[in-house]
């Protein structure tokens, strides 16, 4: 057990060294959400604070999923992903190592974007503890979600493209730009199926003290998403071995 945990950490730290500064990670994981924050802060300074929850959720979502997609894409393309099977580590351990790297990247980028934004916007966070919990839980959920999506694509080259096919539509139905209450009934179904919706809800609860779904429900959904996709990714890693 001890060596399994150690190997999970080694694997995550290796990913940090190898992929944090890759162009795909930086452009999709940092620049893309940062550009959105800048656009909305300049376009509508008065209404900007009300959008913070959604924009910060986008930062976590794109940060974590870009990191996992980049690492899986490069490793499967070069064939080096297979080396993990030669190590004394379980499939779940491989998955947790990968998730941890995305998780740390998500936390780092989101907290940096939060700090920079809040320095300029000068608003008071309603509940800092809840904000930290939201960042942790969302990073875990999105990192495992991103990892699973990267593992199911057949052609590793396409990982980021397929990822965007899912990520970009989710932005529009998850309450980031438009409140979920204003969506059509059909889109509302997609909104409640999207894990981002629950993350936006938690972000708004912690920053602005407003929420459209129960806070505890959001916690449960995000935790379930994290655990579910971790398990699915582990199954997929085992299948990829053959």
């Amino acid at each position, binding site marked *: 057990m001890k060596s399994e945990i150690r190997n999970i950490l080694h694997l995550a730290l290796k990913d940090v060294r*190898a992929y944090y500064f890759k162009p795909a990670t930086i452009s999709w994981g940092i620049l893309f959400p940062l550009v959105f924050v800048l656009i909305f802060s300049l376009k509508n300074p008065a209404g900007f604070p009300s959008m913070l929850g959604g924009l910060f959720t986008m930062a976590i979502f794109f940060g974590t999923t870009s990191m996992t997609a980049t690492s899986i894409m490069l490793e499967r393309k070069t064939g080096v992903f297979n080396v993990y099977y030669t190590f004394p580590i379980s499939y779940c351990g491989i998955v947790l190592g990968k998730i941890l790297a995305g998780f740390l990247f998500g936390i780092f980028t989101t907290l940096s974007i939060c700090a920079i934004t809040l320095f300029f916007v000068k608003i008071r966070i309603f509940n800092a503890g809840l904000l930290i919990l939201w960042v942790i839980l969302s990073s875990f959920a999105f990192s495992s979600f991103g990892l699973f999506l990267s593992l199911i694509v057949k052609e590793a080259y396409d990982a980021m493209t397929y990822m965007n096919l899912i990520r970009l539509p989710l932005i529009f139905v998850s309450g980031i730009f438009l409140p979920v209450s204003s969506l059509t009934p059909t889109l509302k179904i997609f909104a409640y199926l999207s894990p981002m919706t629950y993350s936006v809800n938690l972000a708004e609860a912690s920053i602005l003290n407003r929420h459209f779904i129960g806070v505890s429900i959001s916690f449960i959904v995000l935790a379930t998403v994290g655990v579910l996709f971790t398990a699915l990714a582990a199954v997929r890693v085992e299948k990829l071995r053959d």
Partner: protein
Amino acid sequence: MRETIIRAENVTKNYGGLTAVDGVDISIHGGDFFGFLGPNGAGKTTTIKMLTGLTNISSGQVTVFGKQLNKNLNYIKKRIGITGESTNLFPDLTVKDNLKFKAKMFGVRGKEAEKRIKNYLSEFNLNSKTNTKYLFLSKGQKRIISILSSLIHKPDIIFLDEPTIGLDIKARGIVYGFLRRLNGKGVTVFLTSHYFEEIELLCSNLAVINKGRIIYSGKMEEIKKLFPSDKILAVRFDGKPVEFEAQRYFENFRISGNFLYLRNAEVSGALEKISKFSKETKLKVIEVNTEGNKLEDLFVKLIKKDDREK
């Protein structure tokens, strides 16, 4: 009696309806330098993957170090090293970071890991590449670092799947020397290669696989007893002979580079034909030698015999 460290019994691998490996039996003893030969697609890599737990076995059983493979995977992985066909290192990390990462994953840390990395790199004069990204190494350097990385945890057996592919003769010589020293220290080596002379030079035991089945397994010197030794006349020209031209003069021949190999040729008659061939093709004869069976010839005979029998 040396200990059997790997025993595969009736091991089969199916991919859907295709049987890639069919009822393979292999025994490898501690200290063996084991060669594994087979044509492309014969099932060499799949067999290695099954022996090392890198793929599931459809049926049969593999025991490694006396333990059942599928039930003791992590224990066994700690005692084996694998260098596969594809790269096993991360292009974006430096040589040192790659080796350190692999060492850590096998529980080798701190000064011990540093010491091993330094020693291995010195052995191949690659110290200057310590902080170079793996991506920027030459093909040969990549192969050597890849082999080193599979030895970093000092395994008891190392599996090398085509380890010298892409290496020039000098680098191959260095790798041979290294593998011999390693084997001399008691490390068991399992080697597949397309270079027959490599297998012949290094291996004490050999197995040949064709169409997923083992068609020969035994000592290197015993394979030569399977077929009566042919008389082979090796003629080296100053250029490459052309096959259709040679067909007009010779019946049982093979061309490899600038060499023309004549099997079971009567020397006196052959020399006359060689002289005529040389005149017509304007290829100068550099040397003529007689040879016995080479592993490559025996391999071809084995495969042909097996194909005929099917």
